[in-house]
């Protein structure tokens, strides 16, 4: 009875992205929180490590990658949950909208917000807080954007398993915290228990943080950097596809 999802329609994707951004525009407080909070937190961190600027460099760079991942995860999981519970998702899927259009639209809209957020946080870190980056700060932005996409993808995916906003918010510690602990932010990964190191090898955030550190310590683009961003991008794409599979045209 159902046919294969139609190929991506650029016009519908763009319309969806514009709609998501328009919704955000009616919520200025959320925009302010999205843009200002990372800057404030990274400033806080700078003065926490007041006597050890070297520590700030490595942790600060990692956080520049982790902020967009966490915020986009939260924003997307709530936004898509609302789309599911308000009936607008059912309405859209009863229209000639492809699932890919909806997901790409969300990824595009939140990706744009993430670029803005990362530009602000990176600029303040590098120029005002003296974050010492050996490589190009633009590469930091590339990693941050991919992290944001990964966050959007994860948020979209877990929203399928949440039936309330309470549950959706609780998925944040469940999905993000283990990765945060194992990504090498607190201890280098090769100093962890071998079992944990093996686990961290398959968690995408480990590569997000490693990518940031590659830029931090190398002038040139390293092979490891390419590997890192490919893995993060691949994971984001994979989870987006899984997320698409959770959007059902027909439900009980």
């Amino acid at each position, binding site marked *: 009875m159902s046919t294969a999802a139609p190929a991506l329609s650029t*016009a519908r994707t763009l319309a969806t992205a514009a709609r998501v951004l328009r919704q955000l525009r009616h919520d200025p407080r959320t925009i302010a929180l999205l843009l200002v909070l990372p800057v404030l937190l990274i400033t806080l961190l700078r003065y926490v490590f007041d006597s050890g600027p070297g520590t700030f460099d490595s942790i600060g760079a990692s956080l520049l990658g982790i902020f967009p991942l966490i915020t986009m995860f939260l924003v997307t999981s709530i936004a898509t949950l609302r789309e599911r519970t308000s009936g607008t998702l059912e*309405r859209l899927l*009863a*229209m000639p909208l492809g699932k890919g259009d909806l997901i790409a639209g969300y990824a595009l809209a939140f990706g744009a917000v993430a670029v803005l957020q990362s530009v602000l946080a990176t600029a303040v870190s590098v120029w005002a807080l003296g974050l010492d980056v050996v490589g190009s700060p633009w590469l930091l932005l590339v990693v941050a954007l991919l992290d944001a996409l990964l966050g959007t993808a994860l948020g979209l995916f877990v929203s399928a398993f949440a039936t309330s906003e309470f549950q959706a918010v609780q998925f944040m510690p469940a999905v993000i915290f283990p990765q945060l602990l194992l990504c090498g932010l607190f201890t280098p990964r090769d100093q962890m228990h071998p079992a944990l190191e093996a686990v961290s090898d398959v968690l995408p955030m480990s590569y997000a943080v490693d990518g940031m550190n590659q830029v931090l310590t190398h002038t040139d683009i390293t092979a490891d950097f390419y590997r890192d961003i490919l893995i993060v991008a691949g994971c984001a794409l994979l989870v987006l596809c899984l997320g698409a599979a959770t959007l059902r045209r027909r*439900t009980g």
Partner: protein
Amino acid sequence: MMNSSRATGPSAVEARALTVVRGDRTVLRGLDFTVEPGRITGLLGPSGCGKSTLMRAVVGSQAKVTGTLHVLGRPAGHAAVRNRVGYVTQAPSVYTDLTVRQNLDYFAAVLLPGRAHRAAREEAVTRAIGDVDLASHAEALAGNLSGGQLSRVSLAVALLGTPELLVLDEPTVGLDPVLRRDLWNLFHSLATERGTTVLVSSHVMDEAERCHRLLLMRDGEILADDTPDALRTRTGSATVEDAFLHLVDEAAATRQETTR
């Protein structure tokens, strides 16, 4: 009269042995019915009798549907009929953090994408807002509207693509008598002027009198499929409500006889 219109065109909806299972409960039990094109068909019955499930099956968002169900000549939910069917759920499904016009602009862009159709979209949006009498609230945030206004926004979205079949799940619940009358007038003008087929559910029996044809439902079965006049005459009742009660008693009596 009804037979002649049926002969001229194929049915808008045609169901044979339509069965829907939700969990371990059979919600619709082998229904056979047709919906005539260009007419208003009322789907009436107490709440919980399966009206919403039937409508969800017609628009193609219900899972576990067996039997045959053809909508506008195609299997229900087929990609080719998706933009020819308008559907309004019981709860208004619009974005409360967008204005009325922004809501309609987005759904119009989904139905008719592309820059080339911008003028057509604007026209469709303005017309839909006018149809549901919300022109004065077009720039208001949907979240700030009253319940009745919000459900009219939802209806306006369904009217956007000039659908050939309009499926409305209890569109008049919670509306004041004036608005209810206005909406029914709108349904009638849609059917007579634009030739739209309207399938509308209600659990308020007095709305039945405004339909061309009725499907009376109870416990996942269709008790009667007839015109309001014919129903009243057949059961010797003064109102459709009495006719419905008569049919319920009759069905209970036959059931008792068969089990005896």
